[in-house]
């Protein structure tokens, strides 16, 4: 027992409880039966997960195909030139967007729509692509130096392993553009939205994360990058290692662990401050953690994550709260929990969720 000064009555009470609870045994037989059930379920998962992928658009309208081909050819530029990520985004067939499914764009006519709240995608060194433990059947010739795109809509998340072993947790409302295999001497990707990266260390080839307004250069480290409002606000939070951040106007800053870099492209102001990193990176483990955070920020975050229409007034904005939300829960239970942390009431009216301060 931890407290030495604990009263002897309490001690006696606890030891009695302990004694009796020790008798509640799970029999060896039950233990084996349950283990078999678990193993069976795991096998079944691996088999049936047979990705409910379907190719959406092998035969999309010709005009779109032409546009798209132009775009994909565009990317086979010689590597010395800068990759024009924005043109990749702009030339993609808008007809198919938005979708409520996670989208994986493999090439001009291979666009996969992936079921499920969380999808795991693994680019292997040999060029194979594994989606949720199933190997994808991609035509060989299209492989090299080609860019893929992952688009994660509201309410979904994805876990991506790049060909160099770098791990990326991709949050909702995020788009990532990356090569199937990295070109020689270059590791570069493009991010719009929010990702947490665990970069595989390689001193010789720096890893560059580009966003609309900033570039983050690293050797091997863990950090979170997020952009908002069409890229005008960018944030980088560093967990370990060291990164260099370069703004679009070529101002460079060095970032150290537990520091938050924020940049407003409209005013060209950047700022570095010490933060509690858990609040910024907990989402990757399926949590959203906040401490004395304004409810305004919390609700923005929730409505963005779940893609829900939530409205609240000035009075609600004044409140702060602390807590930890499980993002695997559905929106209703998350909001329910929030009413425990703050004095608020929730009303739902025609798909819009209204939040009031409790009278």
């Amino acid at each position: 027992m931890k407290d030495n000064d604990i009263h002897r009555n309490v001690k006696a009470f606890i030891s009695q409880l302990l004694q009796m609870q020790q008798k509640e045994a799970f029999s060896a037989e039950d233990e084996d039966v349950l283990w078999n059930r678990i193993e069976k379920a795991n096998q079944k998962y691996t088999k049936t997960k047979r990705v409910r992928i379907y190719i959406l658009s092998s035969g999309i309208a010709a005009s779109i195909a032409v546009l798209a081909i132009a775009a994909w050819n565009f990317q086979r530029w010689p590597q010395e030139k800068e990759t024009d990520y924005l043109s990749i985004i702009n030339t993609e067939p808008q007809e198919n967007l938005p979708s409520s499914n996670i989208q994986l764009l493999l090439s001009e006519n291979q666009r996969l729509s992936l079921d499920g709240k969380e999808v795991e995608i693994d680019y292997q060194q040999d060029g194979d692509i594994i989606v949720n433990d199933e190997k994808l059947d991609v035509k060989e010739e299209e492989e090299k130096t080609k860019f893929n795109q992952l688009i994660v809509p509201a309410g979904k998340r994805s876990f991506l392993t790049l060909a160099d072993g770098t791990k990326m947790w991709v949050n909702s409302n995020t788009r990532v553009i990356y090569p199937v295999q990295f070109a020689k001497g270059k590791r570069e990707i493009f991010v719009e939205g929010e990702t947490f990266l665990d970069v595989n260390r390689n001193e010789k080839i720096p890893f560059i994360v580009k966003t609309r307004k900033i570039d983050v250069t690293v050797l091997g480290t863990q950090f979170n990058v997020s952009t908002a409002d069409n890229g005008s606000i960018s944030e980088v939070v560093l967990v370990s290692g060291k990164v260099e951040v370069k703004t679009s106007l070529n101002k460079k800053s060095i970032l150290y662990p537990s520091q938050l870099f924020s940049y407003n492209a409209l005013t060209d102001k950047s700022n570095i401050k010490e933060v509690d990193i858990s609040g910024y990176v907990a989402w990757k483990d399926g949590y959203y953690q906040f401490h004395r955070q304004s409810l305004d920020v919390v609700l923005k975050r929730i409505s963005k994550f779940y893609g829900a229409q939530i409205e609240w007034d000035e009075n609600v904005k004044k409140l702060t709260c602390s807590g930890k939300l499980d993002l695997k829960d559905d929106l209703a239970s998350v909001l329910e929990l929030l009413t425990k942390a703050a004095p608020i009431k929730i009303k739902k009216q025609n798909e819009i969720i209204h939040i009031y301060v409790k009278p």
Partner: protein
Amino acid sequence: MPEEENKDKWAQFIAGDKEAYGWIYRTNIQDLYRYGLRFTANTELIKDSVQEVFTAIYRNRKRLPVPDNVSVYLFVSLKNKLIRMMQRESFYKDDDLESVPFSLEPTVEEQYIEQETQSLRQKQLKEILSLLSPRQQEIIYYRYIKELSLDEICSIMSLNYQSAQNLIQRSLKKIREAFPH
């Protein structure tokens, strides 16, 4: 249970070692089962929830963190799953956190040679327990039976430090006063 070993095995498991996965199950199953009994006497529900906990960590193994404390991590997962399942089966309708059932009362009757001693002691125990709210029983369980740190308790019960301490003190006071002298 040596928590360090638990953590080592966890690291091996997320690196792809299937034996380590089995080890984690075998080492933690008794504790998890007994913990489950605190929420419900429905042993099938506990088994289903344990199964879900272990299949979920298997599915997500590649991106799992190594938790500070593996058994606490498993407890939290089991609690979440169990409560979800109990809600689903509408054991209780209101999903108010306060109404999560938690009972320290043993589900197995103690076997005494003397019937009288047995009934007397069990009666006393039940009387004291009846004075404690589910939340009070739950915090006593974490603090004095599982011997968790206050930080860990705060995260399992979604409490802040001060309210956790208050809850413990209030519970202890009740037990002290209720215990026959």
